[in-house]
């Protein structure tokens, strides 16, 4: 994953959302719309099943696979009604229902029914969950939201990193990682400027450029994951505190 290319924030605001495209009768169009949804949600779903449902890794993996396969075959996501909840919340309730009926779903999968989705790296996902302390149980909607944003940001950051590395700007990205994400307390622009032999203004300029790239990526990915354009606006406001068109 992480190799998907988006065209930046050049989409006109009237562009159909993924959820609108997934309703297409054209199988190819529908498949194309389903891809970003899988990419944007499989990891939060897996983490949610591990943490909230306390499924062991194997079972959580199967449950994620069977959920996505069933959602595709039975057109679950097409039933989403924007008037009732956010898409993320709707999806989470579908996952809950699926987990409850898990016994049967698992059997169907064993019979070889349903298409497993290839290319989902569950080993890494599991490693990531182990790496961090599982915190106090929070509200389930909040838990799913937290995992979802974590994944959204992680993917966007990885895209930005690749963008910089492949265009010979790894140093700029490293500066950003160190100043904005690093553990060093009290690191000043002047310290960094002296260390790198550039001016303070260059330091702040480079930081600003990477931050901007990250924001653009994250907004693009966010848009892909929202049910409607209005939902996208609300999420952008809540996550970044900004107004988008």
């Amino acid at each position: 994953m992480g190799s998907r290319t988006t065209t930046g924030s050049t989409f006109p605001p009237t562009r159909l959302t993924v959820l609108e495209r997934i309703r297409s009768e054209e199988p190819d169009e529908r498949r194309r719309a389903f891809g970003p949804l899988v990419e944007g949600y499989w990891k939060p779903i897996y983490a949610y099943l591990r943490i909230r449902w306390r499924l062991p890794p194997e079972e959580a993996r199967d449950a994620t696979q069977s959920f996505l396969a069933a959602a595709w075959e039975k057109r679950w996501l097409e039933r989403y009604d924007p008037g009732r909840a956010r898409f993320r919340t709707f999806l989470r309730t579908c996952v809950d229902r699926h987990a409850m009926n898990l016994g049967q779903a698992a059997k169907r999968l064993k019979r070889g029914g349903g298409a497993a989705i290839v290319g989902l790296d569950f080993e890494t996902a599991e490693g990531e969950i182990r790496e961090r302390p599982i915190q106090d149980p929070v509200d389930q909607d909040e838990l799913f939201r937290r995992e979802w944003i974590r994944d959204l940001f992680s993917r966007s950051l990885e895209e930005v990193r690749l963008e910089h590395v492949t265009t010979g700007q790894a140093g700029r990205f490293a500066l950003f990682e160190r100043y904005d994400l690093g553990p060093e307390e009290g690191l000043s622009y002047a310290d960094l400027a002296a260390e790198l032999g550039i001016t303070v203004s260059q330091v702040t300029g480079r930081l600003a450029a990477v931050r901007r790239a990250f924001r653009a990526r994250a907004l693009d990915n966010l848009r892909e994951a929202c049910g409607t354009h209005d939902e996208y606006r609300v999420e952008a406001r809540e996550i970044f505190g900004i107004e988008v068109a």
Partner: protein
Amino acid sequence: MTALSDASVRRLAEVANLPDLSETRYTLLEEIGRGGMAAVYRARDETLGREVAIKVSSAPGEREDLDARMRTEAAVLAALEHPGIVPVHDAGILPDGRAFYVMKRVRGTLLREVARGAAGLDERLRILERVCETMAFAHARGIVHRDLKPENVMVGGFGEVLVIDWGVARVPGAVDEPGAVLGTPGYMAPEQAAGRSGDATERADVYALGAILSTLVTATEPPADPGVARAALLAERELPRRLRAIGAKALAADPIDRYADAGEMAADLARFRAGNPVAAHPESWLERTGRSVWAYRAAVGLVLAYLVMRIVVAWVTG
């Protein structure tokens, strides 16, 4: 790729939206405030070696009305030179397309904090009178703020009172989008809430000043409905009747029944604070006497003491 920690996620959400000041003479320090449409940052003016506040619209060049708002605001601030209005130093467009302006950094608290805090009635009314005086100055120039509320007034460390956030101000000659509702429930005059922001005159600001008065003296949020807001204030029996009358006049549902502008309200507040009769409340003979006795309580006390002494002396020597 590793998954980010909660702290990193929070930090990323924060920094993703920081303005790019790299092509300017300012160095970004930290965010100090945020409203509905903009964020305000503490920054350092490297040329003059001092700290300033920079307000940046919170969308990256995507919403033209936001940028127009910033331009209006900078222009209004520039036009209004007054001790109650924060001075603007600079304005422009950032490399990322967002509009910004630079102003004096106020070291102090929001009126909202004062309302929640321990300040006495007298201090609260002093601040309110300052706000009214500042607004009188703006009204005299045909400028209506349209979003007065405790979040948009700052009280500095030396007791100075500053009206901020002039982004939706009505400027003489400018036209508004019809139907746009600008303002905040509870502080917004009914004619403004009804979507007739174009009708929002000086008297709409007076309504907001009445709502601020009510917040300051009752420590509760003003109800959105003018009738309810007015009744709630009038029911506060432990407050002086003339003060309640001032608030009630400002909170009148019909603009015609309010003070014509902030200057009239400032004058009435000054009268109240000096212990004089107020325009909002015609007094009976008894009230007037009571108020005079209260205003001259020290002198009255002396006279009474003298009389008592005379009586006692007369009785002893009698």
